């Protein structure tokens, strides 16, 4: 008999894709997400990033939280919880949403999948069961089930993805529109494919019961062999999503329910998510607070910056004068964008100073010596990377 592992309680859970992913994680570069062991990168973060932009790559979204909400009250409950109008969502469509506290501060963002007339799936980064239960008060005809451990998800992103899925035998996959859902028989069960992702590129998310996870992996990697398929982790995800201008909890926003200091959390208006807030709805969580916020204007505004030079402005303060005495904000995420060839960043700037000059004070190290420089920043309206193939149906040839 083998001796029991005295450290078992310290070890992280394994994703259903772990056996395949562990074999390919040549660098043993692991991170964690919601208690699950999860790759930071497998071979090289930049290489994996280029697979997203140049060929195709998979990202394990099993650790993401998934809840099935069903029943005749499901739609009404979700509609009250999130700021967007859920009643407009059609079956087999997905929508991006955020939800707030009564004070209008953002709890989290995620996606809602409408799987049937009274059946929805909500995905989000952080465990939210307790908040969901609060949001069900007053509704009788619904059940909320945490399906995080029974439904496996694999994000599949990049220009060759559609071709690979076709080769895998998914008929008519090229007709799937952005935010659409299709179902296919797979093994003893079924495979759900949504045209969604977190990279700003052409991409899909593949969903199966966990017992079919490895079969899905093998089928996908067989089909993708000649299309440059490669797994990627958190590092490459973070690069791709920043180029696409997508926000990340713990970077651009601090989840309201985890925020200790007053107003160190954010409102959707501060994060540029105005388009997600639908005041035509008679009621939703945070509505009255957000109405006031809309009138008054947000204190901070999330902006996209193109920064001169090539040193990423990680953790930089932003100023409205080159001497760096008048601070107006801070950088939330920054990187050198290899595809665009630009020094890009997302930043929070005091709204009243938008339209003025912005300077970043950047620190960098050169052979153990710290250096600093002041770089001019240019406000950027559009995402840094938004290729037409990401929106086109059918996607153009890669």
């Amino acid at each position: 008999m083998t001796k029991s592992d005295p450290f078992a309680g310290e070890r992280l859970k394994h994703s259903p894709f772990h056996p395949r992913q562990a074999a390919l994680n040549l660098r043993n570069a692991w991170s964690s997400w919601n208690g699950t062991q999860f790759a930071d990168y497998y071979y090289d973060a930049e290489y994996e990033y280029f697979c997203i932009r140049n060929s195709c790559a998979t990202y394990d979204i099993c650790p993401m939280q998934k809840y099935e909400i069903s029943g005749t009250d499901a739609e009404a409950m979700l509609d009250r919880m999130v700021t967007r109008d859920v009643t407009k969502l059609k079956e087999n469509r997905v929508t991006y949403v955020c939800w707030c506290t009564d004070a209008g501060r953002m709890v989290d963002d995620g996606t809602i999948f409408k799987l049937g007339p009274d059946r929805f799936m909500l995905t989000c980064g952080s465990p939210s069961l307790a908040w969901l239960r609060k949001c069900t008060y007053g509704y009788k005809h619904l059940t909320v089930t945490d399906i995080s451990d029974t439904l496996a998800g694999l994000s599949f992103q990049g220009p060759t993805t559609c071709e690979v899925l076709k080769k895998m035998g998914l008929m008519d996959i090229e007709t799937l529109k952005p935010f659409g859902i299709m179902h296919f028989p797979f093994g003893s069960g079924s495979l759900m494919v949504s045209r969604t992702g977190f990279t700003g590129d052409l991409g899909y998310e593949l969903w199966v019961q966990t017992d079919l996870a490895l079969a899905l992996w093998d089928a996908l990697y067989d089909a993708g062999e000649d299309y440059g398929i490669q797994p990627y982790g958190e590092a490459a995800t973070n690069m791709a999503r920043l180029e696409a201008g997508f926000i990340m909890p713990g970077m651009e926003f601090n989840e309201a329910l985890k925020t200790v200091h007053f107003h160190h959390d954010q409102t959707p208006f501060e994060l540029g998510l105005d388009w997600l807030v639908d005041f035509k709805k008679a009621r939703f969580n945070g509505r009255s607070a957000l109405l006031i916020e809309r009138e008054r204007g947000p204190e901070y505004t999330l902006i996209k910056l193109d920064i001169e030079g090539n040193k990423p402005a990680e953790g930089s303060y932003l100023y409205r004068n080159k001497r760096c005495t008048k601070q107006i904000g801070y950088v939330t995420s920054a990187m050198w964008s290899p595809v665009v060839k630009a020094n890009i960043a997302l930043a929070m700037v005091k709204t009243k100073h938008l339209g003025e000059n912005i300077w970043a004070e950047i620190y960098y190290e050169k052979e153990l010596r710290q250096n600093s420089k002041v770089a001019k920043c240019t406000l950027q309206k559009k995402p840094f990377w938004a290729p037409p193939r990401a929106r086109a149906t059918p996607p153009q040839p890669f």
Partner: protein
Amino acid sequence: MKTYDAIIMGAGHNGLTNAAYLAKAGLDVLVVEKNAYIGGAAVSRELHTGFTYSNCSYVCSMMRQAIHRDLNLTRHGLVLVPYLGTVSFSDDGGTLVSYHTAEAEYNQLRARSPHDADAMFRFQTDLARYAQLIRKTLLRTPPDPTSFKPRDIMELLFLAKEFWALGEQEIYEYVRFFTMSAAEFLDDYFEDDLIKATMAGAGIIGTALGVYSPGSAYILLHHVMGDVDGNIGAWGLARGGMGAISNAIAGAAREFGAEIRTNAGVDKMLVRDGKAAGVVLENGEEIYSRIVVSNLDAKRTFTKIVDRKDLPPGIYEKASNFKIRGSSGKVNIALSGLPKFNNVPDNRYINRGGQAFVGSLETMERAYDCWKRGRWSEDPFIECVIPSAWDPTVAPPGQHWMSCFVQYCPPQLADGPWTAKKRNQFGQTIVNKIERYSPGFKDLIVHMEVRTPHEIEAEVGLTEGNIFQGELTIDQLLFNRPFPGYAQYRMPVKNMYMCGSSTHPGGGVSSACGANAAREILYDLKRPNVVPQDDFYDE
């Protein structure tokens, strides 16, 4: 009759860069190109259905990031993808793999020679130090050391400052480095022949020098000083082939209003009252302009395009004697599958990037001997890259194309002119050598394009098929390129400029020559400069 502000001869990547910047500054610009397609030696062509060859240049590391960024080349369709993993093969079938991490690389070298594994750190550091200095000159106009103009004095001071920053000992080493051979330079560091041969390959590519010829050490540096996204020494592929670079620059140029005419080869440059005044096309058509910029190599420009009587004494001779010897061949091969090589593990990150058939220093030197005797090398140095293993757009899925760069292949054969038969024999020599390391390789071949210096000159226009538009030896570098006294892009005929790789900083798909020339032209026209600086001065 319309008079353009500027006519640029040759739609290679430097000519297009020059046009883009002149047009950006508001000039009325025309680019004339002899071929039916643009790109010069940075070109993608589909010669066999489904396969897109980068016919000439095939990888890039010199492309100025500042220009890519400034001209918005990504928006015009350019994506540069780094490629990984090159395997070097020795004569006896031994292999040296280029691993992606320093740790794996160290372990591998240590298995061959613990001494060399340690020496590699010093070697890489020294190269980085030398590269750092040269890199800073790329997007700058070389100063004229005899001039007292404030611009030249400032520029000389800049160079001197960078030079002194090396430290006393390194200054001696650096000066020595410029005149050394690659093999001798490598002898300073390494004992293992395969390690040396692997490094030495970069010292002879595109050059009519052997690994033991003085000056080849600098060529080595020229090939490792580029970068991809700040990773110095890394090489990238242009998605869609090297033509994507030219096409993107052309896109930017057109957006700024430049006109590009293909099938418009220049026969002569027009000179009126001692000033460049336009061009005469091969079909006799005359087009007028206030400025003429030649993107052709110096020899072609001054021995074929500019009339000798329009030149001051001595220039024709200088151009005739300009060192631009053809030394390389290029074989592009379409394959029905991915070739497998002996002694290379089935590791997807290293078995599909590139293959360097270096043999040994001795083999490389013998290959050079063949060239000197007017024959192609019987056992050549071949550098292969399989772009389709990284770029899904250049071959059908599961099929591939392989770029084989061959050193050496002479522009003229000792036993008479190049013929189709000899060209095929040359191609077979390459295939036979690869087959030795990859049994079954021949069975994968579905199409082949064989290019000797003869074809490269005839199609691209590079004299003798020299890929650098003139050798990169110290007598033809910096303020000596192309000729002493003419290194600042202004040529002996007034209002005439050069913008090709015959000018500083020399060969490679860098866009630097074209951009530097544009800056000088705008300076002469007293227009504000629109050409960016490199972005790594805080490196």
